[in-house]
Structures are given as C-alpha cells and as structure tokens.
C-alpha cells in the first residue's frame, strides 16, 4: 500500500502519565485523514510526534519512508498548531516572510508564494495590518497560509477550524479538498463530530487509544449508527465493557 504516514505500535508517556497507548495507523497519499476525539484524548501529542516535534516513548513512526523525527522530512511537512503561533507585533506579510525564509524561500519565489497562499485564505487585502488587529478567524487563516507556504507534501493541521464561522469553515474545507486533489496528504484533528464526516478516513481516539478506524461510511455501517457521533459512542462503550 502506498502509505506516506505509518504509525506502528506507538506509545507515549510524560513522566508517569500515559498519553497514548499502542497506536497503529497509516495514511495513504492524497488522503484526508481525520483524527477524531475529545480534547485531552491525545490527538495533539500524536500529530506532534508525526510532525517530528515529539519523540515516541516506544514504537515507530515513518513519514515518506523515513523514521521520524527527521529534519529533512520536516521540510516537506506543513504544520499548523492549535494555537495561532504568530508574531502579533508583525504584519501578516512579515509573519509569512519569516516562515517562508525559514523554509528557504527567497526573492521572487517567496513573494509569489506569499501572494498565492494569502489569496487562498482570503487575506490579500489585510497583509499590511499588524496581526494583533486580526480577528480570531483571520489569525487561523494566516496560520494556515504559513503552513502552506513551502508547498508541503504532507499537511498536518491541529483543529484548523476552531473558532471559525460556518461559511469560512466550508471554505477552509474546500481548500483542503483542492490540496488533496493536487497530491497533498492531509492529517487533521477535530473534536467536532460533523466535521469528521468530511474526511476520507477517520481514526477515533479516546483516552489515548485508537478505538476505531475506517471511512466515515464504514464506521457508521458497521455499528449501524445514523451519525459519526453514535458510532463514536458505540466504540467508546465497547471498550468500557471490556
């Protein structure tokens, strides 16, 4: 199988607290893979390990056939953190210039990519404004643009649509579909059940365990549930009975 992200038997604990236990999953190229689970379930820790920021306590993560963490692979990953990691004193453009330079984009290429990503997230008219005058949604979009600058093959997004209005959320998802069609593999976390339906593949995480995975359709059918939420409750309940 043509998988770009491969997580096998990964566990992670901070001091004595086990955050993730024995997680295995793989994400195919071009796929939009959603990690669904309540906050505190360990989603962020998992994607941080995939992005190369954290290291697993046990198990192995390979991205693009390379064991993570690897600085070489990190160049090919775009990461959007849960908090808007932006420099509020700087303007939107200056923020993008900074992140573009870190990924080695310069000169005309840098300007071109900044224009393209800013247009993609509808911020072209606001690039001169300092970020501390941005609304919450604008900051999220700028963070997304910053993650897209270097045309990453893999895009990792931690709760990208939190605090964004439904219209904008739709437009962010449309962008993600477009990127996916163009060959980008996308890993996204969410705790919003209906948003999970938009993903091609889903992994349900609860209390540090992967309780189910498959396409939203499969997950609903195999539990004869109407909604993803029901399916989540079903799988969550099964574990409790054990």
């Amino acid at each position: 199988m043509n998988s770009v992200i491969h997580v096998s038997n990964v566990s992670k604990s901070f001091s004595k607290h086990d955050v993730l236990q024995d997680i295995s999953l793989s994400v195919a190229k071009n796929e939009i893979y959603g990690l669904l689970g309540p906050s505190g379930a360990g989603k962020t820790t998992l994607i941080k390990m995939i992005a190369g920021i954290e290291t697993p306590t046990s198990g192995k993560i390979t991205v693009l056939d390379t064991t993570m963490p690897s600085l070489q692979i990190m160049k090919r990953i775009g990461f959007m953190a849960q908090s808007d990691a932006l420099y509020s004193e700087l303007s939107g453009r200056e923020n993008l210039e900074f992140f573009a330079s870190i990924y080695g984009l310069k000169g005309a290429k840098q300007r071109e990519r900044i224009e393209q990503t800013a247009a993609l997230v509808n911020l072209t008219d606001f690039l001169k404004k300092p970020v501390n005058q941005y609304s919450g949604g604008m900051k999220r979009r700028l963070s997304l643009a910053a993650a897209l600058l270097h045309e990453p093959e893999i895009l990792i997004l931690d709760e990208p649509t939190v605090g964004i209005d439904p219209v904008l959320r739709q437009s962010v998802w449309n962008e993600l579909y477009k990127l996916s069609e163009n060959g980008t593999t996308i890993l996204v976390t969410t705790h919003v059940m209906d948003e999970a339906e938009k993903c091609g593949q889903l992994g349900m995480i609860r209390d540090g365990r992967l309780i189910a995975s498959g396409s939203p359709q499969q997950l609903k059918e195999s539990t004869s549930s109407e909604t993803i939420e029901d399916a989540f409750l079903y799988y969550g309940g099964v574990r409790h009975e054990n």
Partner: protein
Amino acid sequence: MRIRALVKRIIRQFKRDKRTLAMMFLAPLLILTLVSLVFSGNDYEPKIAVISDQQPVADQLEKTDKAFTFYESSSKAEDDLKNEKLDAILYVNPPSTKIMLEGSNPTANKAVMTTVDKALKAMSPLSDQLKTLQPKVDYLHGSPKMDSFDYIGPFLIGFFIFFFVFLISGVSFLRERTTGTLERLLATPMRRWEMVAGYVIGFGIFTIIQSAIIVSFSIYVLDIMMKGSIWYVILITLMLAITALSLGTLLSAFAKNELQMIQFIPIVVVPQVFFSGLFNIDTMADWLQPLSYIMPLTYGGQAIRDVMIQGDGWSQIYDDVLVLAGFSLLFMVLNTLALKKHRKL
C-alpha cells in the same frame, strides 16, 4: 538563511515595541543620571566655620565666599560639626592652617576642598604666607579614599546593561514559548542552535546600540571620569550584554511565565551586585569570596573600572573579555541543550 530570517524578525518586532526599546536604551540613562545627581551634585554649597586668632584673616575669608562663617569658640564649632550643621572647620593660625572635614559625604568633602583652596589662593598679599601653605586635612568621619560617582559609575553602567538585557531577552524568549511560536518553529527544520544563534545576533544588534548610548551618555553628559578608551568600555559592556542575553534566554527555559522570569532577578541579578566590585570583595567572609569567580558581573565590572579609572588597555582587560565570551558560549550551549526538552532533534 534561517538565522537571518530570525534576526530580521526580531529587529522588526523591536521596532514595533517602542516601549521595550525605550526601557532598554533610556531607563539606564535615567537611573544613571539620578545616581550621578545624588552622588555628585555640583551645586553643593558647603558650610565652613573659620576659627582664627587673626580677625582680619577671618573677615577676609568671610568676604571672599559666603561659605565661611567666623566662629569665636572652637568648641561650639566642633559641636556643630558633629551635629552636621557644618561641613568643615578651617583653623587659620598662621603659619599653620588645618581643615577638619565632617567627611561622611564625599560630595561635601570635595566642595569644601575646592572652596578653601580657591579662597586661600584669592587672599590678598597681606597674608602672603597663607598662599604657600598647604592646609593639613583631618577627617571626623571617613577618609580621603572615599570617592563618588566616578567610583561606582563604572559598575552601575555594567550592572544596568546586564539587568535590562537579561530581563528583556529572557521575557522575549519565554513569550516565544507561551504564545506557541516556539512549538511552531520546532515544527520547521530550524535547528536548535540556529534558534539560539538567531536570538543572540538579533538582540545583539540592539545591545550594541544600547552599550554605545549608555557609555557615551555617562562619559559626555554625566561627565564620569574616563581615563582609558571609550571603545574598550563599549566592547566590555557589549560582552557583558551578550552574557546577560544568553543567560536570560537560558533561564527563561525554567520559567513558566513573565512573573517567574522576574523572580530570577533577586536570585541571579542582585547577588552579582555584591560581587561586581561595588562592594569590597576582600572584606567579605572567606567562604563567600570564591563565589565572585562564577559571577559574570565581577569580570565586566572590574574591567570597566580598570579602563575608566586606571586607563587600562587591551593587555589588562583581554582576560576579562575572554571570560565573558566563555560565559556567553557556555550559556548558549546550555540553552541549545535546554531546548531539547521541547524537541529531541
């Protein structure tokens, strides 16, 4: 390339945060000016009692300067001196002249000496013998060794630079962590040492400006004693600033928020004041003395004073500069290691 991006970003952020820039550049100037005014006010008018068996001499002294007052009884004058109503008593009994200084205030001592010196030189040929006489000086308190701003100024320059750079760089680096931008940077291929180097260079540019402003202000405006080369002083303060910068960013790894960063001041910054040379290290308890060797401000403070007061050159200060460079390098390496807590690679 990545370091340059970081340096450029820091410069831009600084330009937007005018208040922090003002604190870094102007706050030390304000405090130095206050200290300079307190310790060396030029307008101090001394009160000097004149005791003399020759009435005309006393009268003439009273005429030359209103600082002088004729006292008939020397015991009354001595009482007033003890009660700090007088700064000095001048005994003029030719052929001997004697000055008794109150002595606890260096500024007053200086003012008395200048006034007496001037008055005696201005005396008419009538008392020609007085001109050639060098008055004998006695102290009620203190000693002639006591000095004022000239003496403590060099340390204060070093100390304020250290203090403000430590605080500002520490808080900035801390904010990088609390706002999530550090994590964001760690998701990029930027190496840990590149991050530390970028910070040192970015802030370093502003500390060069800061050092130049503070040192020139002290020398040209506050008129602090300056025997050596201003370039050496700027070099030493710059090295001290980079030490403070690397120490501040290192320690910010162990603070959870800005308040905890400020809590490092009494632990890390204040103790250095006692070892910087502002107070005499030799008179300290024996077990305390070795502590001065691990304090960066000891080396910086001594070197600045050596240049400013003794006029020392490169051959006398290079070892202090090297020690400061060593401290900076050590703190930078430790900071690179401390960042491992956030990303192993």
